[in-house]
């Protein structure tokens, strides 16, 4: 039988399933990620993103289906895969017993990199993430942003073909966030592949060439972020904000009724109604003078709108 999987894909999943006992974390997912792009995996907590990532980094066995990374099978060639990928985990798992530089050297050893080469590589990477001054510092003396940059550097010690980042910028200040973004862009520019998960839609929109939104172990939608926005909700959005909580329920009810009548897609949130698509001006013109509305905000539709529309506003664990 001919292989079903594209030869030059970075990641290729066919009917991929992962069960933890009775619980199905990833449910029959098929996914093709070509080489040389930045791919985003989005979804609320518990959607199955981290499970996907653990299977892709070949450290968690798959339950069913087939998963290839860089043309290699995650089951039979897991060591080979891990040799060629760089992983930037969600949590800080730097070695607190070692200095900044020594963290890189110890990590290099797991990849079989000789000490001289590792030292050279470590200096280069520390320079890249602007931690040269901190090379001899203890990990506990680093700020959150510095730790994250060091983890990014560590993930590149083996010159990976594929970089996997699990929520790489959570909790970072804007400077560190941009520094991490820069590293991702530089890496991608070398023709290599990036896979990242994030809860920040702006980050996904800025960085990702393609993305998939997951929920309850399935992929809901997949594509280029701009095209996804256009396709699912259109370019434009407007927020009609009510004067006060509760009291102006009536006005919002009226708008909602009108939207349904005119088949304008919308989403209602506490004190406001968000309208999407080309027809929004028709609604706005009707309620322009409504005194129970404090504000009418016209804006571009964003990935966040797509995300909330698809996955709902219900809170997740």
């Amino acid at each position, binding site marked *: 039988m001919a292989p079903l999987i594209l030869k030059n894909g970075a990641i290729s999943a066919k009917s991929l399933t992962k069960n933890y006992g009775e619980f199905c974390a990833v449910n029959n997912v098929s996914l093709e990620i070509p080489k040389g792009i930045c791919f985003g995996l989005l979804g609320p907590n518990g959607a199955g993103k981290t499970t996907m990532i653990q299977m892709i980094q070949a*450290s*968690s*066995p798959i339950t069913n289906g087939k998963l290839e990374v860089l043309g290699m099978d995650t089951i039979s060639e*897991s*060591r080979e895969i891990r040799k060629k990928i760089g992983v930037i985990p969600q949590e800080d*798992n730097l070695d607190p017993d070692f200095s900044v530089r020594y963290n890189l050297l110890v990590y290099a050893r797991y990849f079989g990199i000789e000490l001289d080469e590792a030292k050279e590589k470590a200096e280069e990477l520390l320079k890249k993430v602007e931690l040269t001054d901190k090379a001899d510092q203890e990990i506990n003396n680093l700020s959150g942003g510095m730790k994250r940059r060091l983890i990014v550097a560590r993930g590149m010690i083996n010159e990976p073909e594929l970089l996997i980042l699990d929520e790489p910028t959570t909790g970072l200040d804007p400077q560190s966030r941009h520094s991490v973004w820069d590293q991702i862009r530089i890496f991608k520019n070398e023709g290599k592949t990036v896979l990242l998960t994030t809860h920040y839609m702006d980050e996904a929109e800025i960085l990702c060439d393609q993305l998939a939104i997951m929920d309850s172990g399935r992929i809901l939608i997949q594509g280029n972020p701009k095209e996804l926005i256009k396709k699912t909700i259109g370019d434009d959005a407007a927020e009609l904000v009510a004067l006060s909580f509760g009291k102006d329920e009536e006005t919002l009810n009226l708008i909602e009724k009108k939207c349904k009548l005119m088949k304008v897609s919308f989403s209602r949130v506490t004190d406001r109604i968000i309208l999407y698509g080309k027809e929004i001006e028709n609604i706005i013109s009707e309620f322009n003078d409504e005194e129970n509305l404090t504000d009418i905000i016209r804006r571009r539709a964003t990935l966040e709108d797509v995300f909330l529309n698809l996955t709902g506003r219900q809170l997740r664990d």
Partner: protein
Amino acid sequence: MKEIQGISPQMVYAVWRRHADVWVRTWRTNLLPPLVEPILYLLGFGFGVGAYINEMGGVSYVEYIAPSILAISMMFGAFFEATYSAFVRMYYQKTWQAIAATPASASDVLVAELLWATTKSVTNATLMTTAILSVGYVVNQPLISMQGAVLMPIVAIPIGLMFAGMGLILTSYTSSIDWFNIPFFLFVNPMFILAGTFFPLSEFPPIAQNIAMCLPLTHAAIVTRTLAYGDGIENLIFSVTYITIMTVIMTYLGVKLCLRRIVT
């Protein structure tokens, strides 16, 4: 599945080196306990309490406890490392998780834990033997034979592995670091006192003797005692067989159960 869990000697070494590097970084504090502790025991119990005891098991009391504290330190060295320290690396520092993203497998990590815990047993045995020999030299009373002294670090390997395996079994199960106090108080500490370490098992009623003969430390102490005095080596068959079988079972189960916990 097989490949994710396979064992590679180079990778095991790389992980073992990481633990050794941490130890070397803090060597001053690490050397202290195995050197000072035996001196305290020998002084306090051996010479202090021993002054009121004519002899025990055919030798002076200080000679009786010298091999015991060696066996105890082999046990603690491995057991502590495979429980509290391994749990810190697994749960708090996420060292295992960090390594799992490299070519090293989960099995490599666990085998390295066993070997590192055993290394602690061996270093403890070496340092303590040195301390005991020094004390013996100072008081001009050889507490253990020279051949015995040379053999102590070697027997620390199987003894250490056995206790390391037991430690990993507990680590595979525990949900919090405090939980380790239970096996320590109910299993390790009673063994410490009752495994023929501070008085001969023959003082026990027969049923208690039989129970004591099931405990791993009893056999570790029989081995160190026999080697220390240098006679009756031929009587070791039972204890050596016990330690060998237990080592195989405990290390196998320890790795197996930990894998079930971490490779999900």
